[in-house]
């Protein structure tokens, strides 16, 4: 029995040594995934579901560039004030909004989906192809109140989806 113990132990040690870097790479990829990161604290807690359900607003009502441009865009404060001049004026969050508006300060929204500089994602192409916003952003109408990243949206995710729908996987489609 002892004859086999030593090679067995050596083999096991080697196996663990080989497995370590692989585990490290996989663990890094898993724990650094964007969906694992906590959602950023926004200057104004904007409840998406209430706007979609109670106010019956379309996504495009505020994110106006989404069908024409690469960027979906954030609404101007004037758009918010259109309604909130009269609606819900008593609440603390709306008071903050009014403060911003009256002082002429921009709201420094925290970016939720961090796209690196070298990736050019174009909203219009995807929306015009017929994708629902929820495909990537999750169900903001009924489920997700405060914006957070629900889909991985790293390169592997993009490529998988592009392959699934027969979209080009040329590097220069996104990287230039």
């Amino acid at each position: 029995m002892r004859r086999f113990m030593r090679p067995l132990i050596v083999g096991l040690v080697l196996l663990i040594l080989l497995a370590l870097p692989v585990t490290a790479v996989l663990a890094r990829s898993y724990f650094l995934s964007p969906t694992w990161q906590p959602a950023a604290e926004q200057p104004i807690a904007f409840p998406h579901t209430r706007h979609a359900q109670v106010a019956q607003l379309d996504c495009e009502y505020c994110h106006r560039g989404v069908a024409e441009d690469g960027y979906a865009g954030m609404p101007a404060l004037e758009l918010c004030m259109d309604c909130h001049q009269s609606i819900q004026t008593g609440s603390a969050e709306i008071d903050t909004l009014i403060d911003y508006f009256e002082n002429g300060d921009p709201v420094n929204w925290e970016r939720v989906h961090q796209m690196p500089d070298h990736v050019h994602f174009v909203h219009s192409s995807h929306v015009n192809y017929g994708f629902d916003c929820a495909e990537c952003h999750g169900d903001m109408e009924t489920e997700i109140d405060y914006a957070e990243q629900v889909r991985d949206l790293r390169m592997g995710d993009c490529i998988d989806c592009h392959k699934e729908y027969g979209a080009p996987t040329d590097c220069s489609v996104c990287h230039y």
Partner: protein
Amino acid sequence: MQERHPLKGEAITKELLRPLNQTPMIFWVAVIILGGILTAFAFAVGWMFYWGLGTTGLNTPIFWGFMITNFVFWIGISHAGVMISAILRLTQAEWRRPVTRAAEVMTIFSLLTAMLFPFLHTGRPWRTVYWVFPYDFDRGIWPDPRGPLVWDPAAVFTYLTGSTLFLYTTLIPDMALLRDRSTGWRKTLYTILALGWRGNERQWKLQLVAGILLSALILPVFVSVHSIVSWDFAVSLIPVWHASIFAPYFVIGAVHSGVSAVITLMALMRWLFGFHNYLREEHFDSIGRLLVVVATGWMWFFVLDIIFAMFTRDPRELVVMEQRIFEWPYAMLLAFVFVFAYIIPVPVWMFQRFRRNIKIMFWTSLMVNVGMWAERYWLILPGLERKFEFTFMWSWYRPSIVELTLVFGSFALVTFLLLLFSKIFPPVAVWEEMEGVNFAQDIQVGKRTVHATIREE
């Protein structure tokens, strides 16, 4: 037939293991000096990574410089190991015995150093990992096997793996010997490394078979490694690089510089460890004779390379050839290469009296390697300086202090690793030496009786 003075077994073992136990003052001096150079090396590397490759002398048409030259040089040196140990083992040259270990170790350390340089050369080595260790399972992008830069790591890693296995196979009996003669942490280390070697007949047979098998397997790798390194250049479109002769030319150049480096190493070992009874004059004599042939072969390819360029009568080639041969500073460099790597050493090696003079052998072998480094530079740089007819973009290259430090540091690194190795592992294979002693007989040659080995199998 290899003459030898009769030596007793126990005395051989004691003497060959001496460097492991005794640490002369000169060792510490060497460690401190080399450590200083290595610190500068590490600092230069850090400096370059932090500020970017702007700290080198590279510029727009000259994208490859000292670091690539140094890479080619060290890959060349690494050919010594297989040349000495594998080829001479297969051809059963008796005089290889005291040299094999050192040559093999030098192969591995110079390969490691060489492999460092492409990584340094990219300026952002953490990204180069993509190149050698792709793990891109979900992106579907893998390295491009059409390019020589992918063949390169494949060939070099194969060579490194083969050489390491070969070295280890020849180390096992010595590890067992040391295991039985040491105490403390060394005993633990040697016990693990000896892999339960008991020295019975079956183990010796396996070891012998493994050694011969590995030397035979490394041989094709030996030829392919430097051929592939030469294709880094020959596969490109650059006029003087684009030459079909490059592969054999680089291989023979590698053997020339590698075997010379072995002589340098032998002379140093003889001086540092006092191995006068093992690294004897006749060993230098034999390697010197081998080198005359190798150097002349290299010179033949060197001249052919120039002649072939003229053969094409391609003006682009001729422009660069003219610059290389007639214009400052490359004309000087060419003369330097000729004189250092051929004209001085080879006539010296023609005389047995000089071949048996250790000092002369040391200095000539050192000269060859200085010349061979210059030869690589001479081959690589001019092609880039006058690349095609856009004279507007022609440029020149001056290495920066960072690059110089990197090059000197690489020499210090290999020497330092060799010194460390000699403190832990016997620098001359004890079992091979003993085997040689056992094979030796008293042979009647004319009126003299010579203690020598005759192998007829």
